[in-house]
């Protein structure tokens, strides 16, 4: 998960990596602009790339100018990301811009330090035009970066004389940060030599491994909590995170209530393939509890965008009977009015079917809009049906018994 630049720089500072003097300002802390030495750079905190081109990086010579610029940015929305904070930094005079990044090479399954004498620009472009200008240094998983390796890298990107030791130190520190904080990426672009002889990380791009957050309470203590890989969670997504199941808002009208993440992805595709629009991605995880299943269903039902729910359960580690029980209980307790088109197959399919049928016979009216297909109906047919029902929802509701 991507960190904001100011979060990355706080981590850098913890690892002794030099960053410009800075303060972070949000709507409630504009008074901090008084405590800044001008001129400054004002950087909107957002995950959008190319902030410079988007006008999200500005300069200010004094407090008034800074206040104007900050106010013009706070609260605005770029590419779907709302800007809540700006980073105010001393403006340094740059003598030289370098590039430094550490990442997991997913092809080689190793850790690679990428560095270049050419920083401050799009590194992929550099790599494309001048492959030699990017120096790659590989590390086996589990290995430390010895001091000499850091010196080799520093030397290769032109850090020499009095800059060799601090340069190598910064490379080592970034590597320690990368390893100790379970990063997928830690990038400094640009790493600069300033006109007054300092080495400094002017930007900070850090991607953490969400799956390793459990062992980093120090990050939570800094306010670094779960989010999307790139972007904040929506309200519904935060609810799901808390309840313990993966959920992502999409912009359609078909609520997707599948079993299994992989099929959840497939279901979204299939819905679009047959002309529908999914309202969400969701995954119950392995063997969800009844409570969790009902919370999942509730989240969809309560979403005003959702007009129909597509459900599927292939009973593997998660059993059909448990799933059926949860559906039935939710319906009886909450009396939902949105149609549900579902398929249930696999382990305990028969038991599940009996639970549904019993409920239908006892609470016929509640289950009027609920159809549950079985093993012998291909999943594509169920989805086509769902898309059709979603379209119908636009029209006046037809009467009649939809039970099979």
């Amino acid at each position: 998960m991507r960190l904001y630049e100011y979060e990355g720089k706080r981590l850098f500072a913890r690892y002794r990596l030099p960053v410009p003097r800075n303060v972070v300002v949000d709507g409630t802390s504009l008074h901090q602009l008084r405590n800044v030495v001008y001129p400054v750079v004002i950087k909107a905190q957002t995950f959008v790339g190319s902030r410079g081109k988007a006008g999200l990086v500005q300069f200010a010579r004094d407090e008034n100018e800074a206040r104007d610029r900050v106010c013009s940015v706070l609260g605005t929305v770029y590419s779907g990301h709302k800007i809540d904070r700006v980073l105010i930094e001393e403006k340094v005079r740059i003598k030289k811009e370098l590039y430094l990044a550490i990442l997991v090479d997913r092809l080689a399954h190793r850790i690679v330090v990428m560095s270049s004498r050419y920083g401050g620009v799009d590194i992929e472009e550099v790599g494309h035009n001048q492959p030699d200008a990017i120096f790659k240094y590989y590390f086996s998983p589990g290995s430390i970066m010895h001091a000499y390796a850091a010196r080799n890298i520093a030397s290769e990107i032109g850090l020499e004389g009095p800059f060799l030791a601090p340069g190598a130190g910064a490379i080592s520190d970034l590597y320690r940060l990368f390893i100790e904080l379970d990063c997928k990426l830690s990038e400094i672009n640009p790493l600069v030599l300033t006109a007054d002889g300092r080495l400094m990380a002017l930007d900070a791009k850090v991607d953490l491994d969400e799956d390793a957050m459990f062992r980093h309470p120090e990050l939570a203590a800094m306010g670094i909590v779960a989010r999307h890989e790139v972007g904040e969670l929506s309200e519904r997504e935060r609810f799901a995170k808390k309840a313990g199941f993966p959920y992502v808002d999409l912009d359609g009208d078909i609520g997707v209530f599948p079993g299994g993440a992989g099929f959840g992805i497939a279901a979204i595709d299939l819905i679009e393939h047959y002309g529908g629009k999914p309202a969400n991605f969701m995954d119950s995880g392995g063997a969800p509890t009844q409570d969790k299943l009902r919370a999942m269903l509730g989240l969809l039902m309560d979403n005003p965008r959702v007009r129909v729910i597509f459900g599927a359960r292939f009973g593997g580690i998660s059993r059909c009977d448990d799933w059926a029980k949860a559906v039935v209980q939710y319906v009886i307790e909450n009396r939902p009015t949105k149609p549900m088109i579902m398929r249930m197959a696999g382990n305990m399919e028969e038991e599940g079917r009996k639970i549904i049928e019993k409920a239908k016979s006892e609470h016929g009216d509640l289950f009027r809009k609920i159809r549950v297909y079985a093993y012998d109906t291909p999943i594509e047919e169920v989805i086509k049906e769902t898309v059709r029902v979603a379209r119908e929802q636009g029209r006046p509701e037809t009467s009649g018994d939809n039970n099979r």
Partner: protein
Amino acid sequence: MAIIIDRHTQTIVQGITGTNAALHVKFMLDYGTRVVAGVTPGKAGQEVAGVPVYDTVRDCLKQHPDATVSSIWVPPRSAMDAILEAIDAGIKSIIVITERIPMHDMLFARHVAGQKNVMIIGGNTPGVISPGRSLVGMLPRIAFQPGRIGTVARSGAVTYYVANSLNLAGFGESTSVGLGGDPILGTNFEDVLRLFEQDPETDAVVMAGEIGGVYEELAAPFIKEMGKPVIAYITGKAAPQGKRLGHAGAIIEGNMGTAAGKIVALEQNGALIAPVLGDIPVLLKRALGSVH
């Protein structure tokens, strides 16, 4: 002899006393899998479904020296250690059910396994099944039937749906391998395709990929060399960028990991692309021609 596991394979279960593991040990035994021992540190002397529990893999192998496969059901924070323990004790194939293993842990486990020539499958694999012979993991037996199609998928549920669509069309599986939903996998598509290519009991392969990572792309060049048809089904065409869809590994990061990119790479190298599940048996029939 099927790929990876067979009727005679002796397996152990790490984390055997956990609720899920204990349930599926019973299912595995019912299926005929030779689960000979289990490990939960501190619980040596107990039994799970009649299977003896030991404190360490080392102790397991002292008593059951012919065990070669371990499945791992421990929590993510212990997964790397469990894998390393199995490798150190001499296990040759490790099937990692645990999901969301920290990326650096899995990289290190892979690295050590590579040095020792040990196969890791997963993390977040539903397991491996050779229908009618052996099952290691949590795959629902009901979804599979013996046959001559090899399947390999990142997702468990997709594995079942693929088998479901094969079986409805009269096909069965030689072996079905779940690679796992985690971003760093021990075994990737190419590894399994190579096994199927060599397997006399497999006529064709269905590979089901999804968004995230580059394992599908990495396998593409080998598909070109294969003598057996490969049907590819790739999900996530409608997925948003920068958001994980359930599987830790299912995420489009920048330009990497899009369904479109994978489909192009596979198609250019001779894989037959199935846009929806129902197309898989159709393409298979076409590819196998008179054989079926």
